[in-house]
């Protein structure tokens, strides 16, 4: 079923059944209707769906944009599918755009593979697909190919998405997790932990009411701004699962430097702080979907911050620490009194510490 977006000869029919069934993945007309009515309808507005089993790109046009191809993939299984500030569709588009962009690439196109549990309301699927199309269009990235599978009830949880993306890396730009040097400054583009707190709360088990929304956003434009202001940028990573703490630990290890953070400089929304205080969580480990950690040479740090703060996705940008030669491989938080603690990787998920 490699050509879900291929155009059929007969006029597309609307899907009228309320729920997705196994027939919608069976390769017959039901599947064709689902693809044409739900996916093609939404995505053709966003780009140019391939009339073939694969999308094709003009190499010369790509080569004109930079000197290397970036290629990445990510799977999305978030529960619940819809949460304040976004849904699985916005995540799937933003996540892959961001994975391309933090490598210094300009995103070009995405694919989308969809695994649907039978019984999913068609309306739910339409909403997710509409979010994907809207997010991709706003980001100026096309969804050009894809695949759809329907599995028996219980074989997956409602809806899983996988997006794969290609982009072109700017000529000469060389960022990487091993490129940090002592003296460099660690920046984040805004308030940390919103997505993780929003998801944990949206699951509803904790019966808390918060105004916290996911920060889900495509970051490629913000990264353009950063590279213009700080061409010497050494490293960029979106701080998703494991939060900023995970990125900084990887950086410390790969660059063989120490990372020294200042607790007072870590930007947090008061509600996320309250949420973490109630549940005994550490916001540094909460996931983000619209925040990146960047490492820049000290002489470019102020320009980078100024440029970010002028951008809507970087208003609350902050310098949260610096790289040092001491204690390579370790992330150390300087607490508000000048005490210190080590910020290690977590073993598994952070669980509320209640008792």
């Amino acid at each position, binding site marked *: 079923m490699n050509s879900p977006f291929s155009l059929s000869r007969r006029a597309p029919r609307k899907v009228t059944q309320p729920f997705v069934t196994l027939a919608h993945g069976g390769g017959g007309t039901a599947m064709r209707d689902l693809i044409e009515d739900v996916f093609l309808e939404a995505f053709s507005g966003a780009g140019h769906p391939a009339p073939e089993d694969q999308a094709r790109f003009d190499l010369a046009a790509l080569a004109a944009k930079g000197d290397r191809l970036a290629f990445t993939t990510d799977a999305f299984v978030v529960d619940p599918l819809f949460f304040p500030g976004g849904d699985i569709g916005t995540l799937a588009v933003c996540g892959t755009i961001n994975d391309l962009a933090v490598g210094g690439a300009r995103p070009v196109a995405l694919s989308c593979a969809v695994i649907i549990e039978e019984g999913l309301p068609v309306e739910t699927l339409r909403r997710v697909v509409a979010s994907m199309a809207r997010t991709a269009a706003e980001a100026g990235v096309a969804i050009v190919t894809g695949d759809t599978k329907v599995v028996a009830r219980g074989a997956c949880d409602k809806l899983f998405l996988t997006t794969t993306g290609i982009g072109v890396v700017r000529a000469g730009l060389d960022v990487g997790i091993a490129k940090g040097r002592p003296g460099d*400054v660690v920046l984040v583009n805004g308030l940390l932990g919103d997505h993780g707190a929003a998801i944990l709360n949206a699951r509803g088990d904790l*019966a*808390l*009411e*918060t*105004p*916290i929304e996911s920060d889900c956003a495509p970051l490629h434009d913000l990264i353009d701004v950063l590279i213009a202001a700080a061409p010497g940028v050494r490293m960029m990573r979106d701080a998703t699962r494991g939060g900023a703490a995970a990125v900084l630990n990887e950086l410390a290890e790969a660059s063989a430097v120490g990372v020294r953070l*200042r607790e*007072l*400089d870590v930007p947090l929304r*008061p*509600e996320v*702080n*309250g*949420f973490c*205080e*109630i549940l*005994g969580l550490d916001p540094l480990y909460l996931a983000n979907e619209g925040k990146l950690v960047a490492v820049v040479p*000290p*002489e470019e*740090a*102020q320009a980078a*911050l100024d440029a970010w703060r002028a951008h809507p996705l970087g208003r609350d940008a902050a*310098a949260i*620490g*610096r790289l040092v030669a001491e204690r390579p491989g370790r992330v150390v938080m*300087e607490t508000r009194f000048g005490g210190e603690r080590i910020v290690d990787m977590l073993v598994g998920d952070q669980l509320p*510490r*209640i*008792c």
Partner: protein
Amino acid sequence: MCLGIPGRIVAISDPDAMLAVVDVSGVRRTVDVVCVAQESAPLEELIGVWVLVHVGFAMSRIDEEEAAATLKVLAEIGEMDGEMEALRTGSLDLLPQAN
């Protein structure tokens, strides 16, 4: 053990069930107020009161006078320390070249 956090009661959600809504930095949660209610007064008296919240229960009223008294003792210790005000500065300078 025993994570507890100060919050402010903002509404009575179910007076018969002794449930109220508490606000912690903009995060709200329904809590049991049996341990902080006064038998002689209506529950509405709790609105605006700061309480210590533990696992969904308001466990103690926070005594603002006692808090002020503790801070006063602390301030006196601080006054003995000449450098105290000098230490009340903002963030360490991470961006020295910019100044």
